[in-house]
């Protein structure tokens, strides 16, 4: 039999095996689809709006009420508690009901008009990093506006005004250009990595699990025989069906990200499509490598699980890798998802020429080739049907 028809026979055998157990359907379709839909639905709003804050108003004059109102009017914050008692606000903060407190001191208005420089204080609950940074921004803006409004009144009273008034109020402004994510959307940077991470994790587990099952069910010898004792043919026949299925799953998340959500895809379709395909191959490569290297299934699985879960941290999409300890910076190169993240930033987000991204592409390819290192060992284990739990 020719090699191709041999592989084709093995592929048919593998499709049957995949269809025969529910756990494969769970790993290849159900769980990734759940992950995609979960994050699609969860991150839908992009930026969380109407975050609850409290205003402690000890002044209670028209000025302080106006401040409160404009704080409430900012889309990102909602004043849910107005009180003159700071303790009450602090307790609400401790119960997690509010993310920030805006404190207007007693006699605020009076001191402003007397030029006594009263102090506006705002508190943020930094235990919740994301909402606190959003309410921080709103409250800081509001405090600055309050300052500006008072200044404006003073300057107008002194007869200064006209077009140069804004320059007087803030002589230097910062024009920010958040490149390719002008909405500063959290959904873009979270979903772009969380979804492929699911595909990575399950492609890796499916590869490792399907091979270890052959040994556990004592079908490995038969599998090798039907591939005429070529471990390469055996692996190709076994894994190609999974590769195809995971690439379809991958296309599913790509279409959610770039067709349904219209996230930035400045590179065009193909660079990211290749990145996704290579990620699937890298995942399978890592799965086979772990199974071949460790004699005990559970250690191979533990390695896969560790790699899958640590990927979320060391890929650097939430906390940048250059800010991590030197050891972890080196270590991060051992994670396929890290390279996928670099490709996403270069290609989908920034759309820079593909030539600049050759390193991560190559790295993913190398992960895909990892099994070559353990082929003889894996073959020996398969021949003996050696299953060690």
């Amino acid at each position, binding site marked *: 039999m020719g090699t191709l028809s041999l592989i084709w026979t093995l592929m048919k055998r593998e499709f049957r095996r995949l269809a025969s157990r529910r756990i494969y359907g769970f790993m290849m379709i159900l769980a990734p689809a759940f992950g995609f839909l979960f994050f699609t639905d969860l991150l839908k709003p992009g930026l969380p709006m109407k975050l609850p804050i409290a205003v402690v108003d000890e002044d209670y004059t028209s000025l302080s009420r106006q401040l409160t109102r404009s704080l409430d009017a900012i889309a990102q914050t909602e004043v849910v508690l107005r009180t003159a008692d700071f303790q009450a606000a602090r307790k609400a903060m401790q119960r997690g009901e509010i993310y920030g407190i805006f404190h207007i001191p007693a006699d605020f208005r009076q001191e402003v008009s007397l030029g006594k420089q009263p102090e506006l204080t705002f508190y943020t609950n930094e235990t919740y990093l994301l909402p606190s940074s959003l309410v921080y921004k709103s409250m800081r803006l509001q405090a600055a506006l309050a300052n500006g409004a008072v200044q404006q009144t003073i300057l107008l009273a002194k007869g200064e005004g006209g077009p140069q008034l*804004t320059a007087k109020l803030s002589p230097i402004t910062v024009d920010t250009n958040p490149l390719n994510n002008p909405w500063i959307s959290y959904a873009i940077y979270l979903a772009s990595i969380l979804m492929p991470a699911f595909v990575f994790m399950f492609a890796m587990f499916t590869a490792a699990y399907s091979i270890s099952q052959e040994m556990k069910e004592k079908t490995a010898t038969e599998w090798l025989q039907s591939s005429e004792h070529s471990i390469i043919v055996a692996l190709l026949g076994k894994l190609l069906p999974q590769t195809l299925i995971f690439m379809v799953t991958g296309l599913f998340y790509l279409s959610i990200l770039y067709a349904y959500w219209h996230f930035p895809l400045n590179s065009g379709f193909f660079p990211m499509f290749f990145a996704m395909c290579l990620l699937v191959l890298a995942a399978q490569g890592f799965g086979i490598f772990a199974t071949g290297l460790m004699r005990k299934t559970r250690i191979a*699985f533990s390695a896969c699980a560790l790699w899958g879960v640590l990927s979320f941290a060391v890929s650097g999409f939430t*906390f940048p890798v250059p800010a991590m300890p030197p050891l972890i910076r080196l270590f991060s190169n051992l994670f396929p998802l890290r390279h996928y993240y670099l490709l996403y930033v270069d290609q989908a987000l920034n759309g820079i020429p593909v030539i600049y991204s050759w390193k991560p592409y190559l790295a993913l390819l190398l992960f895909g080739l990892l099994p070559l290192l353990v082929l003889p060992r894996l073959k020996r284990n398969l021949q003996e049907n050696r299953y060690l739990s």
Partner: protein
Amino acid sequence: MKDIFYIFRREFYIVFRDRGVLTFFILLTLAYPLIYTYIYSNEVVREIPVAVIDQAQTPLSREFVRRWKASPNVKVVAHCHELEEAKKWMYRKKIYAILELPADFSQNIRRGEQAHVALFCDMGALLNYKALLQTTSDVAMEMGKEIQVEHLPYASRIQQEITASPVNIKEVKLYNPQSGFASFIIPAVLILVIQQSLLLGVGTIAGTARDRNFQHGMIPHSKYYKKAWNIVLGKTCVYLPIYFVMGFWVFWVVPRIFSLTQIGSKVNLMLFLFPFLLACVFFAITLSFISKEREQPFLLFVFTSVPLMFISGISWPKEGIADYWIVFSKIFPSTYGIDGFVKINNMGATLREVLPEYLSLWGLAILYFALACLLFYREILKNRRSMLRCH
């Protein structure tokens, strides 16, 4: 009572003779929090490599750049002449942001017009953007104030001060003063490590029992395995003490090693964590029924950590989560665990202030105890039926 003791002894041997289970119960809970916290141990982003394009080249513009450079967030690695050149640096990942001062920067200030500086930021990591934006606007405000003062030559010193800032602004960052990333994410990770390692470990025990049982059942044919609650309690008596020890390490020692925020009272913390551990144990026993073989816990439970982290309200604010996900999140002990632990440990709340979470955990413990009993009862019935068939 004798039954419980028998089951306890048998379970004890199962746990301590199975390296796979011990890996989850002991090794994972020991090592994982250390690795994870170490990854984030720098807490904040510092010295972000950036490029400066100063097209004005005047004392004022240089002053702006000098102050900007002085910030710990910034490390200028290149001075460029034009944007295209700087962008090449960005493509090669040598820099993550570009600060551009236009040619008319100082001219505008002298004329009393508004001057602009432009910050171009790579959005691959939002933390970089946040740090750079803060630094730049701080410098702009500080210099702006001085310029305002200079432009009021007729006024007295105090008057200048007041006009430049009639209201003082003070910001206070509570519970995590440097907005550190580890202090924010690790408490949630610690709670999840406990719950997930129990799921994996107990799932492995169940899967192994099924692999070895000729009828794929969960319990042996034995006169001691006749009452469902005895089985659940016997198992719990093994898992719970192990997790008291591991819990001490995870919740008390690890935060200490990395000097994370830890302002809660020890008594409150222990009182709160007891129902959490109990609920986790019963939860793990209940869910172990879906693990049909030894390897399956990996496939079933590992991936759930990330969605659980998100619906707990730490990574993503609760206000932005749809109601049905909130309801869904209530069936997991980790949701209340994270909420309560963060409030006590990081925000110094007392048990009274986390009463809703505390009571909910007891509720979950009772619920999962009942469910676990029910599932074992079914196993007992199955065993009895097969016995009858044999005779």
